[in-house]
């Protein structure tokens, strides 16, 4: 596979290194000349110096072949958006992956159809939610293309559904329970599954249905 990596910071350089080790062909683009010179010692001719949002820089790096994959992993979200738009729409690159630095910019990437995206801050926040028990509903996975998300809910002793079977629950439209984890045992949630205090329940739902789901599972 031929991969073009835009941005030679820690993220880009490590990705380049790992992809090369996995026998892929890699070209890195780095804007800062001091950083470029550092990278050149390791990556030699596989690294180019320049602004990856400039067409002639991308072309010099081989975007017209085109690459199988472009990784837009600079530290600037606007640059990453433009790199992805140029790659997909001007050079017919089949797949792009973009880094989101500021989680507040996620909506812009979504609006402009840039996917998949990776945001370290959001990922860490999701892990915090998972670790900190006061969050009663934890986002595990967003399926953006499908407009669905998977969440985890902890059934507390005072939950109105503790002791009730799944088929008796009045779940909101657009939400379904997937599985119930009790101790170290997990089972698929079917109509006859009975929920108990202490259960970890996985649910799939449309974004925006979280509050309705909370009301059913958590609040008396």
């Amino acid at each position: 596979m031929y991969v073009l990596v835009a941005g030679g910071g820690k993220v880009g350089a490590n990705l380049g290194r790992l992809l090369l080790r996995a026998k892929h062909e890699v070209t890195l683009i780095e804007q800062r000349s001091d950083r470029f010179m550092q990278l050149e010692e390791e990556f030699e001719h596989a690294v180019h110096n320049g602004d990856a949002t400039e067409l002639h820089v991308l072309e010099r790096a081989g975007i017209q072949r085109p690459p199988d994959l472009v990784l837009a992993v600079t530290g600037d979200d606007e640059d990453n958006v433009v790199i992805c738009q140029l790659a997909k729409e001007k050079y017919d690159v089949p797949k792009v992956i973009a880094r989101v630095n500021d989680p507040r910019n996620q909506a812009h990437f979504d609006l402009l159809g840039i996917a998949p995206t990776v945001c370290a801050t959001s990922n860490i926040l999701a892990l915090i939610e998972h670790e900190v028990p006061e969050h009663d509903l934890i986002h595990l996975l967003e399926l953006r293309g499908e407009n669905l998300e998977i969440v985890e809910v902890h059934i507390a002793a005072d939950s109105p559904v503790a002791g009730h079977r799944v088929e008796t629950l009045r779940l909101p439209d657009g939400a379904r329970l997937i599985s119930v984890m009790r101790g170290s045992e997990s089972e698929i949630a079917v109509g006859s599954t009975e929920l108990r205090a202490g259960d970890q329940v996985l649910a799939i739902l449309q974004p925006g249905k979280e509050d309705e789901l909370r009301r059913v599972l958590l609040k008396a």
Partner: protein
Amino acid sequence: MKAIVIGCGRVGSSIAKQLLREGWDVTAIDEREEALSRLGEHWPGTFVVGHGMDVDVLREAGVEHADAVVVATDGDNTNLVVGQVVQKRFDVGCVVVRVLDPARAKFYEERGLRTVSPTSTAIEVLTDVVRSCMVGASEEVAH
């Protein structure tokens, strides 16, 4: 008519002042509070401190009721992304984006964003001036 000018440097502030003189209700946005001084001592329009990528800042500036938005910060890619957000998310009919790089300006122009490249304009004007000098010079030779 309401206009928002994002980026209040030399270009943005001049556009804001000109539109105001022509009777527009103008809001200028800039990250730096000092940029307000570019709008003169008694700026009768509105000024919002913040970044154009921040939708709360755009809303505060009244993007939901804007008839025109000019995006003229000093970053081409910021302008391109902010311009598209204003056009697609807030459905503003007239969005004009300053893009110094002529190649990127052309690409986004083809995709339906109104871009203006001062670099292209400068190249054309400067070349024309050289051409007209040459015409004058050859006429002198002919005389």
